[in-house]
């Protein structure tokens, strides 16, 4: 409709032969050029609002269909808090810490298989993620809105991060913050652009430890916990598509 209106106003007509758009623009009176600039801004604004609307509609569609997925339901039935807790503790305990060049722990198969299967099967559609300027898409956890099965799985996993994985990792890095305890944030799910081969962790002042878990691409189900002074995470042979990133920060303010 916008294009039709622009054509009706003669603003989208093909340029006459031999005259560039710049030449044509230069021939327009200044007031007209100003108005066209303003209209272009409004069209741009309208376009982004339409995209926002479309995203909301996609969320609604996803919400309406997700609950009926029998595969997701069967995966939910297999989730067991006690088993998951044991698995995560054992995985962290079995990982070997390296301190060169920086303190780092690589935990393989950090989630029990039934949990990562449930996470991937119920993963919220891209419409539930927010776009970041660097091309990544981020869903803060626990999500404010996602299909119910995803909310159930992610709430469970967030509890595991806060109550089991976070404390287990903190115990392995107790020397990084000897004056007090470390607490883990719930973090965020991050969808990476296709050409993003590194897991760029979300470093912020005050974070002591940053953990990135590959969920898709990279080395699936591998967690890398690193002192946050370390910068980017190790390269993967395969592009990383989806990660869970969270941070540890001091439980009490520094003395």
């Amino acid at each position, binding site marked *: *409709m*916008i294009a039709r*209106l*622009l054509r*009706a*106003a*003669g*603003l989208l007509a093909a340029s006459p032969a031999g005259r560039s758009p710049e030449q044509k623009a230069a021939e327009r009176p200044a*007031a*007209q050029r100003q*108005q*066209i600039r*303003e*209209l272009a801004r*409004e*069209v741009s*604004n*309208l376009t982004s*609002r*339409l995209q*926002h*609307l479309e995203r*909301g*509609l996609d*969320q*609604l569609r996803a*919400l309406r269909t997700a*609950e009926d997925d029998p595969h997701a*339901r*069967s995966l*939910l*039935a297999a*989730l*067991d*808090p006690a088993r998951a807790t044991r698995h995560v503790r054992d995985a962290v305990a079995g990982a070997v810490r390296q301190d060169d060049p920086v303190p780092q722990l690589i935990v393989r198969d950090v989630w029990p298989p039934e949990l990562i299967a449930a996470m991937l099967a119920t993963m919220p559609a891209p419409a539930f993620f927010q776009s970041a300027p660097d091309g990544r898409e981020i869903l803060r956890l626990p999500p*404010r*809105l*996602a*299909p*119910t*099965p995803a*909310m*159930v*799985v992610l*709430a*469970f996993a967030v*509890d595991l991060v806060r109550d089991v994985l976070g404390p287990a990792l903190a115990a392995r890095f107790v020397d990084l913050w000897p004056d007090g305890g470390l607490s883990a944030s719930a973090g965020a799910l991050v969808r990476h652009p296709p050409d993003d081969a590194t897991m760029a962790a979300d470093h912020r002042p005050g974070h002591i430890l940053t953990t990135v878990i590959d969920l898709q691409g990279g080395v699936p189900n591998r967690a890398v916990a690193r002192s946050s002074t370390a910068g980017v995470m190790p390269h993967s042979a395969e592009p990383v598509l989806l990660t869970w990133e969270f941070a540890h920060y001091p439980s009490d303010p520094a003395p």
Partner: protein
Amino acid sequence: VLDELDVLRTSLDELQLSLADRQQALDDLLSSERAAVREQAALAAVGGARLLVDLIDIDGHPAQRLGIRRRRVGAPVERRLGHWIGVTRCATPAVDVREMWARLIETERNRPDDSLRGRPSTVLEIPDAVVALDHGGTLRVTMEEEPRADAADAIAIPRCTYGLPSRKLRNFGHWLVDCVPQIDVLTAVDPSATILVAPFQKPFQPWGLTLARAAGRSIEWDGRPIAARRVVLFESDGRTGGGRPLSALTGLRERLLRDDDAWRTRAGRSPQAAARGDRRLYVTRRDARNRRKWVSNEEAIEAVFARRGFEIVSMADVPFDDQARLFREAKVVAGVSGAGLTDLLFSPPGTHAIVLISDSLMRWYADDRGARSFWVDGRRGGDLAELGDSPRFYTHLAAAFEQYCHTFVGADAMPLEPLAAFLDEALARVDAA
């Protein structure tokens, strides 16, 4: 070209407005979806359903529990307490009682606001489940993959069946203001479900089922396992920290009033004008057990009221339907605080309640062995409704019903002269209304 640009700008402005409308509609939809999804996710949480109350245990894996629905029934209630408080006198010489009363009034004044609030009740609808009551009073709900062949179609369980001590079930007041509204809510959700109730101990209990439209479809349940294709479970009565289940209670009352022919003819009038009768009732406690009479000069008190046109009624002598009729026709209802006054449920808005509280009744309310005693030291600083479990019980109940409540605190041998002066002042308010 400039004219055409103006046309274009106008069209763009219209598009912006139209888009804003659609965005608002979508935001509203998403907001309600967000609330529904959160609630559903809490019910299906790995590790166990997160419920609004204790004493319910739902056994089923998360995928099964995705099939549970929580429904909110009734409307939120908000009443300005101060508007409905009438004449208040404390005439006891007992220092401890005077102090307690003063502290209660102070606690009431110090609440964040003057509003009594109640949230809608919540009801859980659970498919294919077996229910049973354990010895600790917890309701066990076991969800099944497939319906059993012998499963009932639908059963409904009020909270009073499993969450109320037996001594409260035997109390007319508790049955009327706490239990019957729950059953009425369940009837509203599923009018055909079989209601499981605790075994009857008093004749007023089956009468209560009639009020809640559940007569003829209830079972006295001893807690043994029962399977059903659909279990309708009263979860929360929406009370905000104490007091009474205001939403369910006012919902029941409004329906009863609507159903009453006399009420219909006066519908649309103000609460004051809607008071239908001119009867003055004094509910005597002469029929109460000795240690629950609360006053020692009941006959003399009755005489004070009788001289002012009050009919003296003993509820034990009046059939339940007639009790309801008496209260429907009353303009003023008086008595020592007790279960007999809960029939205020049937009285129209604008009715005046006159409540007498004796020293021994105040001390009973303050007995720290009872959950009702927290008001004594005002430890909790939350919602005003919390103070409904206190000597202010009837003030709160009357306010919920949009009725005025006058209160007199006196010794067990009520001082007749101050009582008469208080009563005349209260009746002057009645006449002025």
